[in-house]
């Protein structure tokens, strides 16, 4: 099924794109991450121009996180106050990200920066997750429960001025901490076309020390609004949002997300996390090799 993408300026096989969306949607439903970290590189690999890929992947993450966010909202799993601060930071971050994107693009280093960011972030977080889930699984097998981790925010967070009470998260911390965290994910969303969930969730747990019951819902809430802002930002600056490409991706990912969510209810969370860790780590290794091996294309053309 050939579909012509009017912004990317090329014909693609529509079924491949829907399948790609379904794959990442499945991951997002199973693990609560956006799945953008897979969509963008795969689209680029398929021949879609990198800017169009990043811009259109953002709207796919929006679609995939909507139903998840609704589900968590019904269960009261969202701290709206914390989410609001994160979103504000995230929107500031997309603005900064747009400026950075333009700067790096004019320097010609955007792809290198994106690749290095992928390797560092995915490698680091994939490694951490793998380590954690393996220890958890081992402890289960031995039958001795892990000593409960003391929930505490990072000492750096405590040193920030101005303190707010976040009741649902059970925190009394400076709003600057989530604001900065939101900004960082906003920048990454704009640059990499990812939702940032896989960075946000661990950061909320281990840096802010939020209660686990509101972490996933609040992260989905933040991702939802930040990817919406990213789509707008791309539509206004790079003009690279391909609505046809986005629709195809959405078609696959929203259905994939639902199926993934049903899988997730049956599986053990530790196993799920180990699988996600392996996937994330695999993508990071592939990207690291890509930086070191001679690329297929030595030359790239950019319109002046």
């Amino acid at each position, binding site marked *: 099924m050939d*579909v*012509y993408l009017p912004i990317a300026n090329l*014909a693609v096989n529509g079924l491949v794109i829907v399948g790609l969306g379904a794959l990442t949607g499945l991951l997002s439903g199973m693990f609560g991450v956006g799945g953008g970290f897979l969509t963008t590189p795969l689209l680029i690999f398929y021949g879609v121009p990198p800017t169009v890929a990043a811009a259109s992947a953002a709207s796919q993450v929006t679609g995939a996180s*909507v139903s998840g966010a609704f589900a968590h909202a019904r269960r009261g799993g969202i701290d709206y106050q914390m989410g609001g601060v994160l979103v504000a930071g995230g929107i500031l971050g997309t603005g900064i990200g747009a400026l950075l994107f333009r700067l790096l693009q004019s320097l010609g280093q955007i792809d290198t920066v994106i690749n290095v960011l992928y390797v560092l972030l995915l490698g680091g977080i994939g490694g951490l997750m793998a380590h954690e889930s393996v220890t958890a699984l081992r402890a289960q097998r031995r039958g001795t429960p892990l000593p409960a981790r003391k929930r505490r925010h990072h000492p750096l967070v405590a040193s920030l001025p101005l303190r707010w009470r976040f009741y649902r998260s059970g925190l009394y911390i400076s709003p600057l901490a989530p604001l900065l965290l939101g900004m960082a994910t906003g920048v990454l969303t704009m640059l990499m076309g990812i939702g940032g969930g896989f960075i946000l969730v661990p950061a909320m747990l281990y840096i802010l020390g939020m209660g686990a019951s509101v972490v996933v819902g609040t992260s989905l809430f933040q991702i*939802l609004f930040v990817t919406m802002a990213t789509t707008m930002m791309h539509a*206004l600056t790079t*003009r690279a949002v391909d609505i046809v490409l986005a629709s195809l991706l959405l078609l696959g990912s929203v259905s994939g997300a639902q199926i993934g969510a049903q899988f997730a209810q049956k599986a053990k969370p530790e196993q799920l996390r180990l699988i996600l860790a392996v996937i994330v780590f695999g993508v990071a290794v592939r990207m690291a090799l890509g930086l070191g091996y001679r690329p297929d294309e030595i*030359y790239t*053309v950019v319109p*002046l």
Partner: protein
Amino acid sequence: MIARALFLAASLLLLGGAREPVLVPEISQHEIQVRQGFTGADLLLFGAILSPEGTRAMQGTDIVIVLEGPARSIVLREKQKVAGIWINADSTEFRSAPTFFAVASTRPIDRIIDDKTAAIYELGLKWLQLSPIGVIDPAEQRRFSAGLVDLMQRQGLYQQSDFAVHTSGDVLYQARIALPSSVQTGTYTAETFAIRNGRVVASAITRVEVRKEGFERFVALNAENNGLIYGLFAVLLSVGMGWLAGRLFALV
């Protein structure tokens, strides 16, 4: 009309250009519409070559057809290995790199014409005039040009095919040139050259218009001019589809 034709024939004879043949080029379609399902187009470029007297004139004549798309200014970046990783380390700018360039000929160009003439008429990818911006040393420029040509050739956007022009009955010629789906919109010019004894004896130009039509045109225009509404629509679409899927699957 007849008088004019007679006058033309007579003047051609009188001008001593009696042996210069006349080219009558044509193209299978003068407009290519890029709309949903567009996967590229196959253009048939054909025509006739006649002597001024109206007789067959192909004997000893070679045909070269150059189809060229709209030019644009580009930055060409080159990756090099720096500290173990491949990064864009060098770049050059070209003022007029064609977005599409295809050359078809009856025989290999270097057997039809000498290098100097080929360069003047841009007959062949080797002779592409890219107009580099700024001072650039010739060896480096050759390296970049070769890199661009190689890249575009593998994307099907630059083509050079010897023996792709077929002739019949010493009067008709035809060639097929394939445009991939990734062609840019704009005016394409097809220039046909008749070459005899290493000299261009006749040339003629036809044009093809490539344009987006219908929905594709609508989307491209709005993405460019109404960013705000376009963006809002994309956001609404993604939220709507996500919500709808949640609703539908809740029923299952």
